[in-house]
């Protein structure tokens, strides 16, 4: 993640993403936030540029890139527009990633080319009463011939209205509890599936968040990823990838907040000099750099393990926890440095302050990360 650790190819790839993000996303992010929507043609363009098939192997129409390239692009996107970054991360890491890892050959052939071409994927795990505790999923899928019949609700589904394909976690055997969960690929046009109304939220307003309702919705059994009962395994595996995505998003928000703070602190004159010359401000900038670098190091460690195919659950939790707390701290200090202007929507730090908050919540709250990390500590001999 640090420049020195990247290959020339990775650097070029990152620079291209940076150029796209700074030209196309950064100047429009305020509007996307205000309209609470990403334009359809922008999403289509992401598909044309290959950003929605980064993790899909070339034989299925993707770019066949690794997690480091993906993280590099996501950071650039998050610096410019955090709502778009999470839309891309969920699509690539959670939906495409799950099909690449757990899909049958037929499923890969059927779905991956469509996703890589730009049909957005949504990931529906959380329910009203199953947030941090994913094992208590209730959405029922009852087998009927070669179909499942779905009844129930999903909450806070990212990209629910942008998506054409949904990876939905259901309970196929309620009596088996967490061992009775399965993952199904659901088409948008499925009769009986209803996309809810968008609720106004604090931040990442350009990302789409809605409920999904299912009333006797029929989904072919052929669309099940893995075996019946594999749902929890798939969800937990994907959670690690999702956490890396949120950590990268948090890092991008934090870096953007630092850039704006540095610029403002050098320009803004009070008491006859730039406020950057006051220790109270300069030391904030120092701590921002320090904490962002530490986030980047934790993230780099998790990414290297991921790229090497090793288990990276604890590393992902640490990176996500630290990067998200850092993003909130940095965005808050950025508002302080901007003073009254930081409270106004004319300056992007107002948005960073709102956008950062969710990084401590989704893909497991900070409290959930501490559970993961403390268990790892306790299991060490």
């Amino acid at each position: 993640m640090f420049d020195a650790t990247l290959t020339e190819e990775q650097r070029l790839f990152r620079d291209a993403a940076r150029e796209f993000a700074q030209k196309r996303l950064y100047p429009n992010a305020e509007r996307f936030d205000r309209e609470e929507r990403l334009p359809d043609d922008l999403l289509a363009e992401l598909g044309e540029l290959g950003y929605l098939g980064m993790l899909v192997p070339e034989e299925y129409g993707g770019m066949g890139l690794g997690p480091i390239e993906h993280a590099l692009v996501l950071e650039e996107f998050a610096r410019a527009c955090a709502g778009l970054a999470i839309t891309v991360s969920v699509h690539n890491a959670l939906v495409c990633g799950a099909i690449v890892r757990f899909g049958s050959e037929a499923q890969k052939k059927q779905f991956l080319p469509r996703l890589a071409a730009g049909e957005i994927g949504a990931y529906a795990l959380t329910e009203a009463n199953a947030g941090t505790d994913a094992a208590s999923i209730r959405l029922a899928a009852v087998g009927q011939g070669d179909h499942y019949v779905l009844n129930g609700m999903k909450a806070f589904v990212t990209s629910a209205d942008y998506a054409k394909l949904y990876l939905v976690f259901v309970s196929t055997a309620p009596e088996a509890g967490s061992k009775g969960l399965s993952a199904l690929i659901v088409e948008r046009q499925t009769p009986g599936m209803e996309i809810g109304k968008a609720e106004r939220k604090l931040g990442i307003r350009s990302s789409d968040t809605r409920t999904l309702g299912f009333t006797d919705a029929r989904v072919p059994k052929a669309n099940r990823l893995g075996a019946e009962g594999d749902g929890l395994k798939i969800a937990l595996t994907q959670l690690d990838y999702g956490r890396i995505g949120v950590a990268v998003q948090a890092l991008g928000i934090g870096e953007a907040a630092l850039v704006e703070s540095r610029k403002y602190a050098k320009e803004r004159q009070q008491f006859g000099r730039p406020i950057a010359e006051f220790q109270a401000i300069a030391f904030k900038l120092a701590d921002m750099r320090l904490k962002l670098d530490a986030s980047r190091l934790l993230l780099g460690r998790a990414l290297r393990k991921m790229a090497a195919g090793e288990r990276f659950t604890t590393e992902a939790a640490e990176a996500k926890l630290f990067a998200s707390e850092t993003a909130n701290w940095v965005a808050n200090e950025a508002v302080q440095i901007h003073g009254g202007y930081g409270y106004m929507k004319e300056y992007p730090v107002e948005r960073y302050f709102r956008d950062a908050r969710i990084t401590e919540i989704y893909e497991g709250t900070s409290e959930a990360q501490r559970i993961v990390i403390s268990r790892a500590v306790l299991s060490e001999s």
Partner: protein
Amino acid sequence: MWWDKRIEEFRREIRTFADAVVAPAADRMDVTAVFEPELLAQMRERKLLSLLCPVEYGGPQFDTLTYAVAVEELSRVCGSTGIMVAAANSLGVYPVSVFGSKAQREAVLTNVARNGSIISFGLTEPGAGSDAGGTKTTAVRDGDFWALNGSKCFITNPHYADWIIATAVTQPGKGAHGISSFLLPKDTPGFSVGKRENKLGLRGSDTATLHFDNVRLPLDAMLGPEGEGFKQFMKTLDGGRISIGAMALGLAQGSLEIAARYILDDTRLGGLLGKQQAIQFKLADMAAQVEAARHLVYHAAYLKDQGEPFAKQSAMAKLYASEVGHYCSTQAIQILGFSGLMASRRVERHFRDVKLCEIGEGTSEIQRLVISRQVLKEFEAAMDIPAAAVKQYQYDKAR
């Protein structure tokens, strides 16, 4: 105890009004970004905009402590309502009561008491934020008039105001000592209120620019003696900080209540949230910090009411309460999880609203300057400090 049964009865009265009338309007005002006229009318009827107005002009003349409780209780459900009351009283009624001439007080405060008229306070400028001494608006003497030119920004309530207090430089080259205050009717020719700001929070509250384009004011429009403007607004802000502290306290209390209610609802539905130590300890820290903030805010108000020095205490109250408000709203969102980010739960609004308390009427950084200077001054007075240290302090101060 600085507060007694009488204040708790007053609190109950305000809380009933806040829950029944203010809270339902708060969600709407956050979306429309317009303060509802019906709510404003009810606030006028309840004398909320003239709480500090002296009895001799027909006002209720509540003490600072009682007033702080009103701001706290309104902010508990709506930061925008809290700041409207706070600004109208401590930045409007207070300076006119204390610095105004008899004629000014009679003309303005009688109206405040009778009709709930609002006085808006114009200090900040684009180039003069924390450095309010860097004011650029000028007032030039022209025969029997002052001619004002310049702009103010981030001013609270001007669209609803009938009078404006504005600071301007009357003696250039004298720095902070060259600043004077003026009190003018809003319909004075040449004066205009600019566009409303689009803000992170307190979206129902009016924040706008003021413009002075050759505004001619009679000599008696000056508030207090010439050159006293800086001293006046420093004193006004000392009191204003108690209100911002009270506002942050209310938003912290509101956040704590939302979190507690969520945990209880979860428990009733068989959830285990309330059994998690991570959650219990958050709640404990929130409650302890809210209580500590309450003591700081009330103590500063009490000292002011007793006529004791309170500048350090009000800076501490504002600094601490606003950081507690930030902490409590953040932790309440953590406890609610994803749903905490949704507007319908109201706590994300508190999170946005309370951020202003770390900025307005002096950022947290400025409060730390005020406090540290005061601490050194007190030690210098109380202790036998080596001459070298005194010299260093004076050198730092001079810079």
